[in-house]
């Protein structure tokens, strides 16, 4: 059992902790804040001189993207078991302080937030990475293979699930399809939750799916919780934690354009004065506080020399010893080539992308069911979107989903075409 008793808000696995949905705010920079930051930044620039040695000694723009090994070392995927423990701890704290009183808590998060993977770690005790909370064992409720049910069949299916002891649904989007016979399971689940017919449970739900069901069941009040948005500081803490390999390493990242520092973050007690970039603030706004999207852009923006692999390995052997040279370089967001939406006059692209987000990824047959677009046409659209790096297919289960790096472009496209959006 992974126990966390420290203040959950400061947990670097889940920076900011969990907050009620209505407290979630989009990380952005107001005019006042921008002006304030700009003045402060300018003053710092004037106060702090950059020595010749600290300047990028050569143009870094042409450096190649990170190799797989470098990526694993400098910007790896998070450990979801740690995140699960942080979530369990956060929920327990919320129950203790009385801000969470419901038996069933809904955790809503935008795609790529890692909530689904973290909740999947709330598995049976004894399994690696499993999480227990308050001495309770959690049972994962898995979706049925086929999702077509009428009301009676849905009722019988839920009767067969043991919801009397603590249960977890990692992703509610896996329990329904946007077709007439695909709604019954979720409708019945919400009916049972509203009636108090279930024991303690956690329902993980993608923000797109939640938005749909919030509009479908307009009178349902579930008071969902969500991870706090990743602002610049939280992103910095999180990236530093990911790259630190459990505190063994301190990674330094600097801008390729002017050598300003991105990581490590400035500390109040720092004696050494450094020029810091606004990269993380811009990244937080661009990713709309979404950690998965921010990580994907971060991975793409990092650069390192091919011979840095050896240096990094050397650094691994000398923990806590920080060298003067940067471990990696960061390309400014303006120079990054992010996926662009292929031009199309037809709305089929929108149907496909909206369907994928609504259901957190779908296979071709299910996509045909929810969009009404033929498999032949779907294959044309999907291959086009795949070439643009906006969607990807998981070969293990043949499920198509939107890529984290393409998510901001996809969301903007759906917004401009008038499709229903999530609130994140």
């Amino acid at each position, binding site marked *: 059992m992974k126990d966390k008793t420290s203040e959950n808000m400061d947990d670097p696995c889940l920076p900011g902790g969990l907050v009620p949905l209505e407290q979630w705010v989009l990380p952005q920079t107001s005019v006042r804040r921008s002006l304030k930051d700009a003045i402060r930044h300018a003053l710092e620039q004037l106060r702090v001189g950059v020595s010749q040695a600290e300047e990028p000694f050569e143009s870094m723009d042409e450096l190649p993207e990170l190799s797989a090994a470098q990526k694993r070392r400098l910007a790896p995927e998070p450990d979801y078991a740690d995140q699960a423990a942080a979530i369990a701890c956060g929920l327990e704290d919320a129950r203790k302080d009385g801000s969470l009183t419901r038996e069933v808590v809904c955790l809503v998060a935008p795609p790529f937030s890692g909530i689904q993977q973290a909740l999947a770690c709330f598995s049976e005790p004894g399994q690696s990475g499993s999480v227990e909370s308050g001495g309770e064992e959690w049972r994962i409720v898995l979706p049925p293979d086929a999702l077509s049910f009428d009301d009676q069949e849905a009722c019988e299916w839920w009767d067969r699930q043991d919801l009397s002891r603590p249960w977890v649904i990692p992703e509610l989007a896996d329990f329904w399809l946007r077709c007439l016979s695909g*709604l019954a399971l979720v409708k019945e689940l919400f009916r049972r939750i509203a009636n108090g017919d279930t024991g303690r449970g956690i329902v993980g739900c993608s923000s797109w799916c939640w*938005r749909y069901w919030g509009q479908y069941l307009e009178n349902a009040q579930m008071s969902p919780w969500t991870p706090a948005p990743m602002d610049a500081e939280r992103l910095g803490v999180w990236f530093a934690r990911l790259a630190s390999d459990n505190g063994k390493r301190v990674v330094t990242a600097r801008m390729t354009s002017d050598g300003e520092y991105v990581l490590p973050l400035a500390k109040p007690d720092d004696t050494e004065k450094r020029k810091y970039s606004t990269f993380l603030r811009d990244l937080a706004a661009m990713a709309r506080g979404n950690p998965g999207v921010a990580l994907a852009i971060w991975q793409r923006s990092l650069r390192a020399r091919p011979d840095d692999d050896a240096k990094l390995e050397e650094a691994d052997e000398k923990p806590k010893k920080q060298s003067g040279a940067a471990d990696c370089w960061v390309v400014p967001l303006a120079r990054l080539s992010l996926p662009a939406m292929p031009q199309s006059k037809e*709305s089929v692209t929108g149907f496909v992308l909206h369907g994928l987000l609504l259901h957190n990824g779908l296979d071709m047959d299910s996509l045909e069911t*929810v969009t009404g677009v033929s498999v032949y046409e779907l294959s044309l659209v999907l291959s086009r979107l795949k070439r643009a790096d906006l969607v990807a297919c998981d070969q293990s289960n043949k499920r198509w989903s939107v890529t984290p790096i393409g998510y901001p472009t996809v969301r903007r496209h759906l917004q*401009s075409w*008038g499709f229903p959006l999530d609130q994140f």
Partner: protein
Amino acid sequence: MIDDLGIKDAFASITGQALLQALLVVLIASLIIMVIQKVFPRVAEKLGGKPRLYLLASVPLLRLLIILSTIVIVVPILVEPSFENMVAIFGALALALGFAFKDYANSLIAGIVTLYEMPYRPGDWIEVDGQYGQVRAIGTRAAEIVTPDDTVVVIPHNKLWNSLIANGNNGTDNLMCVADFHLEANHDVGRVRELLRDVAFTSPRTKTWLPVLVIVFNKPWGMHYRLKAYPFDPKEQFQFISELTARGSAELARQGVKFVSVPVAAN
């Protein structure tokens, strides 16, 4: 009479060079207007949602601004812009228009009124005198709408004074669509209403954050259901209504609810 109005004096100072200059200005203005009228709708076609509507709506406004600017530039080139000269020219112009082009002037004035009252904008779906379609362009004298059958209908602006103009989306991208279902009586009305609501909610074209309503009327021949919802794009309205009707009919048939078998008009 021309002497009385001072027109002769006003135009006495016009030289060949001034005429050429004025012609050049008019030519440039016409070119700019043509480019705007061609390019903006093409760019708008590539955009979706609100940006498309805003871009289309800016075309007549820009044209008016260019015309006004041209007049402001051209008149001082041709005549000395004194008070007497202005009164003479615009007085004569008003007189000529008043007599010769009464209806034309009427439409022109109505055209100016449409620009600030905005009863319709390019991109709006309107119905005037039984003609329904999307406003393609707003000219100086008339507006052009394209019907669902791809027929262009020219509607003079002076219809504004004495016709009822129905605007489906009124400058927004929210256009309510209605799918009608005429069913035999003796069925579970609550169940059918729920089912038709699900039909709208499961359509990929539905704006789910706007109301989805199912209205039912009891008629002598049976029950009349009206399923009301908003498509994500007004351009999709006909596919949307067709899809709702087809899927709703299929599901009602599956549930054993029958449609009325006689034409509604016969009752």
